């Protein structure tokens, strides 16, 4: 889903608008030429069709072009591209602005001062373009398109690096480190009869497919990842009470759907209720991976093998 930056087509940006963008973005301070500046903003604009439908970029009026550029952060974009181009002034400005915030964000993400510094240093090395691919110097700042803030992009990149690093390395840890608490939890949960597992798996899969994306996101975040309501609310930009209400509704809906699905598969209502068990985490059967265990409903255990659901817990250990 990376934003593909297409080469500039026949489209041009109005001269007055370009002049204003040049002035407000401070591109001159980074020794960025006007032609280079125009090429940067034009590529970004063409990649997103000036915020219009596909193929309508060339027909964008100056007003629409201005609205599009008002919706992105041109100053951040210019700074990022100037850094990627190796401008010393741009790097001075970048370090002045983002060195400390980046370090704090890294420490917040890793939960450790040492790991945070390590993570931030690693990202700096990437940003400087020390890594090469196919003989070309690669700078991640080139992928920044100005849709969000540059510091936000840096935080997200840090989080990606951290998660990816953990996912690469956590397989090296002994398996019992993960399984021990789960086995304890599994003993406390009433196990459905083995004969109902295939029925239950089918009902769960059917119910999950009927759910909306946001409901599945809520259930996965809350029951699988163990996120708190306020964290989910912050991501979705809604109030905690809204998340709680939606979560309750989603849980009730999936329960009903599963019970109905089990009844359609021949179970009595009482048997269907028993098959559900008491722990709602047992209901969120979304393990559709090829190696998944069909019919096995202790999905948290399954999902921990395939997902980063308890990533934070594992990272804390």
């Amino acid at each position: 889903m990376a934003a593909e930056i297409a080469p500039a087509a026949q489209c041009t940006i109005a001269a007055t608008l370009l002049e204003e963008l040049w002035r407000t973005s401070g591109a001159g301070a980074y020794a960025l030429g006007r032609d280079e500046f125009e090429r940067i903003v034009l590529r970004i604009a063409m990649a997103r069709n000036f915020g219009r439908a596909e193929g309508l970029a060339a027909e964008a009026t100056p007003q629409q072009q201005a609205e599009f550029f008002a919706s992105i952060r041109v100053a951040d974009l210019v700074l990022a591209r100037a850094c990627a181009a190796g401008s010393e002034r741009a790097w001075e400005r970048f370090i002045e602005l983002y060195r400390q915030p980046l370090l704090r964000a890294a420490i917040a993400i890793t939960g450790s001062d040492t790991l945070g510094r390590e993570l931030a240093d690693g990202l700096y090395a990437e940003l400087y373009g020390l890594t090469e691919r196919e003989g070309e110097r690669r700078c991640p700042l080139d992928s920044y398109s100005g849709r969000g803030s540059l510091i936000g992009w840096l935080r997200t990149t840090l989080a990606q690096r951290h998660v990816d690093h953990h996912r690469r390395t956590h397989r090296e840890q002994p398996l019992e480190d993960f399984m021990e608490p789960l086995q304890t939890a599994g003993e406390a949960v009433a196990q459905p009869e083995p004969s109902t597992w295939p029925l239950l798996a089918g009902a769960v899969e059917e119910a999950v497919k009927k759910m909306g994306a946001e409901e599945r996101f809520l259930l996965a975040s809350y029951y699988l990842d163990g996120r708190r309501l306020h964290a989910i609310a912050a991501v979705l930009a809604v109030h905690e009470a809204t998340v709680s209400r939606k979560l309750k509704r989603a849980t009730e809906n999936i329960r009903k759907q599963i019970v109905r699905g089990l009844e359609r598969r021949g179970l009595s209502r009482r048997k269907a209720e028993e098959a559900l068990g008491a722990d709602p985490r047992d209901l969120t059967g979304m393990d559709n991976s090829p190696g998944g265990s069909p019919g096995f409903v202790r999905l948290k255990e399954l999902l921990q093998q395939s997902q980063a659901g308890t990533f934070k817990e594992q990272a804390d250990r």
Partner: protein
Amino acid sequence: MNRHFQSDIHPDADSLNAFVERALPDTERARIVAHMAECGRCREVVFLAQAATEPEAGEAAPVAREVRPARTSGWLGGAVAKWKVAWIPVAALAAVGGVALWIQKPAAPPAVTIARNEAQPAPETSNAAQPLAVKGASESRADKTAPAQAAPRANQQTERKVAQPAIPRAQQGAGIREESAGDPARHRESGAAIAPPPQPKQMAPPNEAPPLSTFAKTHWQPMPQPTEITEASANPVVPPRASGGPAVVSIHGTVAPMDSASRTAFTSQNSRPALSGFKPQALNGMMAMKLARNLRLPSGLNPVSSAAVLDRMLALDSAGALFLSLDAGKTWEVVTPQWRGKAVEVVAQPRAALRAEAQHAGAEGVSAPTAGEAAPGAADSAAERQPGAVPPSTSSAPPPVPASLFKLGNERHETWVSADGKTWREE
């Protein structure tokens, strides 16, 4: 859900950051949510990035802030955002309180209006001519000094007021209340004969209701006293009140003292007080006590019940003793118990009850209340005339007078009523 990390199918950092910062269009946002519903890795990235955003929020992206305002941040912004739900009940409470105040607010102007025609006691008023409520040497000294100082100002005020066009009575009363509350000189001049010189410490704050004495002495409405009281105690001269309208103000500084004969004649002529414009507003409980300048009763006990109508305020202390004040609680006099048992409550009759009672009395042909039942504030329009002016003709039948302004209840739920707060009869 994906078992392994596949970089080519995950949203890049730019898209995830735009999602976190709510910078994505709805369609793309929905795609990200749909992906995150099945991708634990991207959920983890988004939650981590979001968690790292919060401590950085106060100082994030200085460049970006120039372009677009960030989310509400900082400790104050966070506190506001965190407690913004609490503003809902707070706003509701404030609205209810505002409505309650708005409902209660009309209670004050009638008292101002009704008290508008207060007589200007003569500078030479003797001790015997002092009002019942006035006690103490300081008041006596004030009697002799204040009127002389106030006379010129009062005349000026009279001219100014008379020149004003007729305006609704309530508005005028409100305006006068403001003037009275804010002008100590006026306070002194208007209440010359019966009020001590105004003391700054005792002046009500501007946002409080002015003391009843202030406007009562500025704009007094005559309250026909029982004949024997009028004769014996020689109350201050009480010119008849106007039927309403701004011209009432013309009495300021122009009313000459009446001699005893005139007063007697006046009392007899006005034994049927007119009620045109008579709109007493009852105040009970704390609303009544708020009008009082000094909440302390002579007994030293706490007031347990209070009521006010027109210029009269009654207060019951915890021992059951009843006190009457004619000057907004500045001075109190004990009301002789004329009831059985211990009085526990005193209330002012609501306006509607007064009106109904008056109509009832009128229907029964009750035209002249007894001395003890004469309603205060009921006087005729001669008050606004110059001294010696002929009282208006009584050919037009005046509205009936309510027989009781106050009610008093004892422990056995027996009720007594009074028209002046001093004389009580069992209901």
